C-alpha cells in the first residue's frame, strides 16, 4: 500500500531521495574501498612481477645456451604480459573508482551531470566485467571437453 502511494507520488520522475541517496552513498563508499585495494594489489603485482621477472631472467641466463630462448624473448615477454594484465585490471577498476568519486560528488552538489558521469562509469565497469565473466565461462566450458 505504502509502496503504491510512493509510486503514485513519484509519477514519471524517479527521485534520488532518502533511502536511494543513502544506498548510493553506501555503494560509492564500498566501491571506492574495493578499487583502492585493487590499485594497491596492482602496484604490488607490478613490483613483485618486475623483481620476480628479473630473477627468472637471471636464472635462465645461468643455464647458458638452453636458457637463451627465455633470456632473449621469454623473460621480457613475461614482464610485458604482467604489465599488460595489471594495466587492464587497473583500467577496469579506474571506472569503479570514477563511479564512486562522481556519485559522492553528485550527492553533495546534487548535480545531475556528475550523477550521469558516475552512472556512465559504472556501466562501462559492468560491460567490461561481464565480457570477462563470459570469457571465463567459455574457458570453463572448453576445459570440460
Amino acid at each position, binding site marked *: 500500500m505504502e509502496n503504491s502511494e510512493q509510486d503514485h507520488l513519484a509519477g514519471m520522475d524517479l527521485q534520488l531521495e532518502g533511502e536511494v541517496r543513502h544506498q548510493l552513498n553506501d555503494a560509492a563508499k564500498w566501491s571506492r574501498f574495493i578499487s583502492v*585495494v585493487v590499485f594497491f594489489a596492482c602496484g604490488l603485482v607490478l613490483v613483485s612481477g618486475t623483481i620476480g621477472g628479473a630473477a627468472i631472467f637471471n636464472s635462465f641466463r645461468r643455464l647458458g645456451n638452453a636458457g637463451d630462448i627465455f633470456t632473449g624473448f621469454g623473460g621480457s615477454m613475461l614482464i610485458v604480459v604482467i604489465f599488460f594484465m595489471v594495466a587492464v585490471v587497473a583500467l577496469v577498476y579506474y571506472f569503479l573508482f570514477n563511479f564512486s568519486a562522481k556519485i559522492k560528488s553528485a550527492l553533495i552538489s546534487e548535480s*545531475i551531470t556528475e550523477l550521469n558521469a558516475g552512472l556512465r562509469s559504472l556501466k562501462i565497469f559492468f560491460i567490461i566485467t*561481464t565480457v570477462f*565473466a*563470459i570469457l571465463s565461462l567459455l574457458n570453463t566450458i572448453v576445459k570440460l571437453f
Partner: protein
Amino acid sequence: MENNPNSSIFDFNLDEESRSHLAAIAQWTNINAIAGLASAAITITFFIVTLIRLSNYGGNLFSGLIVVWPFISLVVSLVLNITLLNASSNIKKGIEGSSQAHFETGITKLATYFKIVGIITIIAIVFVAFVMLAGILAGRGTGF
C-alpha cells in the same frame, strides 16, 4: 512560478540520460549474474564428478578442506550473483514502470552487492597478511 507539491528546491530526479545508463547497467548486470551462476554451476558439477571418479580409487574424499573450499566458493558466488540479479531486475522494473519502490530496492541490492564484495576483499587481505606473516616466520625459523 508554479508550485509543484511533488517537488521542492531539494528535488534530485533522474533525467533521460540517467535512465538510459541505469537501463544499460541493469542489462549488463543481468548478463553478468547469469554468466556467474552458469560458471558456478558448471564448476561445481565438474568438481563433484571428479570427486566421485576419484573416490572410486578408494578413500573418503568428501571430507576436510577438499569439500569445504569449493563449497564456500559456491555459496559466495551464489549470494553475489543472486544479489546482482535482484538488483538488475528491480532497477529494470523501476526504470520501465517508473516505480520508485522497485528502483529503491534495486539500488539497495546494488549497494549490498558492493558491500559483500568489500567484505570478501577484507577477508582476502586478512588471509594474505596471515600467509605473508607465516612465510616470514617460517623463513626466520629456517635461517633465511
